[in-house]
């Protein structure tokens, strides 16, 4: 049966369509003319603490935990837009991420077995609120006593704070758990002997890169590894520049002049002969100081 709309119905349909378009337009106008939210309101503490949220979430605590987790990611993501991509997420202290700790705390209280917020708390939070980072990680250990990775996170937090003894103990405790990799045991001794060394840092970030499930944490570990590789590069290049100066009595004006010495270092170079940093950008030669620097566009983090 063919349905033919009457003229009255056509008018009603038109009103509905025009109405929908109008509300979309008005909503857009309201959004663009919304007065800026004060930072005090934007950073207002959460209304619910984790325990209360867990109690009122009925059977939906897992879903509520996912919601808080995604809110934490959006919160950091929103703030991170203002910093260059080469800044790793473990150096976000200047962004005033006041809500991150309560968001992660609530997510992990709602679902204590949700591992990713703990990883995030261990990596991002120490630069924002060290005590909260330790508290959340320890809370995770209490709720998941067999999760050796939480001990790895705790050890990482202490290592960053240069508390090598506490870091070593955390790794040693984690090493005793079933399924813990062999290198966890070795970490205790390494912490005691070479706590602040570049080699140990490389191992810690290397392990983190292998183990991390969160892309942001993986990327942070990658940037840190690049930074460590670049520090080694720069040490070798500085040594090479001093050899050049000792030989010629001056600094090279271009990288090309150092070509034979660079070749001995076995470093990658570009078409102009400039050595490349681990991100693939050429190092900048500072002729006046007989020094070198990372390029402004380098992907390698500066600290």
């Amino acid at each position, binding site marked *: 049966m063919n349905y033919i709309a009457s003229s009255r119905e056509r008018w009603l349909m038109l009103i509905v369509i025009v109405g929908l378009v109008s509300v979309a337009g008005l909503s857009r106008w309201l959004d663009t003319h919304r007065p800026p939210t004060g930072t005090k309101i934007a950073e207002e503490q959460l209304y619910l603490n984790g325990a209360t949220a867990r*109690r009122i979430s*009925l*059977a*939906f*605590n*897992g*879903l509520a*935990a*996912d919601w808080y*987790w*995604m809110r934490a*990611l*959006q919160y950091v993501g929103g703030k991170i837009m203002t910093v260059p991509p080469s800044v790793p997420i473990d150096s976000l202290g200047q962004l005033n991420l006041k809500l991150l700790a309560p968001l992660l705390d609530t997510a992990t209280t709602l*679902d204590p*077995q*949700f591992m*990713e917020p703990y990883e*995030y708390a261990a990596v991002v939070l120490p630069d924002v609120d060290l005590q909260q980072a330790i508290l959340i990680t320890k809370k995770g250990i209490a709720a998941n006593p067999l999760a050796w990775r939480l001990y790895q996170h705790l050890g990482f937090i202490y290592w960053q704070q240069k508390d090598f003894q506490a870091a070593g103990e955390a790794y040693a405790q984690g090493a005793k758990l079933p399924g813990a990799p062999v290198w966890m045991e070795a970490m205790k001794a390494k912490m005691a002997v070479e706590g602040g060394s570049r080699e140990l840092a490389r191992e810690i970030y290397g392990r983190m890169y292998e183990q991390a*499930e*969160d*892309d*942001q944490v993986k990327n942070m570990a990658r940037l840190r590894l690049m930074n460590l590789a670049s520090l080694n590069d720069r040490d070798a290049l500085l040594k090479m520049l001093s050899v050049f100066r000792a030989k010629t009595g001056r600094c090279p004006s271009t990288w090309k002049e150092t070509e034979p010495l660079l070749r001995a270092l076995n470093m990658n170079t570009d078409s102009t002969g400039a050595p490349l940093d681990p991100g693939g950008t050429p190092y900048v030669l500072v002729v006046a100081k007989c020094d070198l620097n990372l390029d402004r566009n380098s992907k390698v983090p500066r600290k």
Partner: protein
Amino acid sequence: MDKVQASKIVETTSPLAFAGVRNRIATIAGNTFREAVRDRVLYNLVLFVLILTGAAVFIGEISGGQERKIIVDLGLSAMLLFGVFIAIFVGVGLVYKEIERRTVYAIFSKPVGRSEFLIGKYLGLCLTLLVNVAVMGAGVSLALIYVSHGWDQLVLTIWPAILLIYVELMLLTGVALLFSSFSSPALSALLTFFVFIIGHFSADLKSLSGSMGSVAARWLFASLYYLLPNLANLSFITPAAHGQLPDPSRVAVVVLYTLVYIMITIAMAAMIFSRRNFK
């Protein structure tokens, strides 16, 4: 015991009589299921599929690599929520609608007992919920396969949690049926919803009873704790999202606990319903 009483007992307990009861209950249950389908109750599946498809496609961008967990949490939570709404809103209307439309007179003019009618109605809605939950479970499994780009162990491990959700819905249907046997649909819906909420707060009732100073208050909260169904026992969505399986013996006891509870609610509903005067 006189001869008449004895012959009645023999009549109702004989295999033939039992088969008759079973057939009548099955007929009422089948009709209730058909009615639910005609009333488009299963249309909620469309909304469920839309939510799940949207989540499967878009959640990856904002979940920080936690798509699988979120799909399970979202899918099973939606399954419970939709099921609770169906159990409550369809459940409270099961008896009321028949009385309102006066079809109950036609039914009871036939050799159908009031208890058989109630049990048939109850089982019919349980069948509707079973279809609903099974289709939703299959939907969650497919969404998991989609986000994992292949087979995922969670596809199997979520089913015990789905079973517990279904058992919870069966219990709520019984509670809705009980309330609707003596009160209006609106009030029954409200009361059943309260039971759902209080059932998930059982642990608080217990801790309240332990922390109260007054002996009377302690007894009151302890009685409430043991009288009201403890739905937290049936909650396994969050561990299921982590791939955990419940202890089978615990599941068996929880299912038994719920079945006993369902039996109590239906018995009470039948008791109240048998005394109702439809004139």
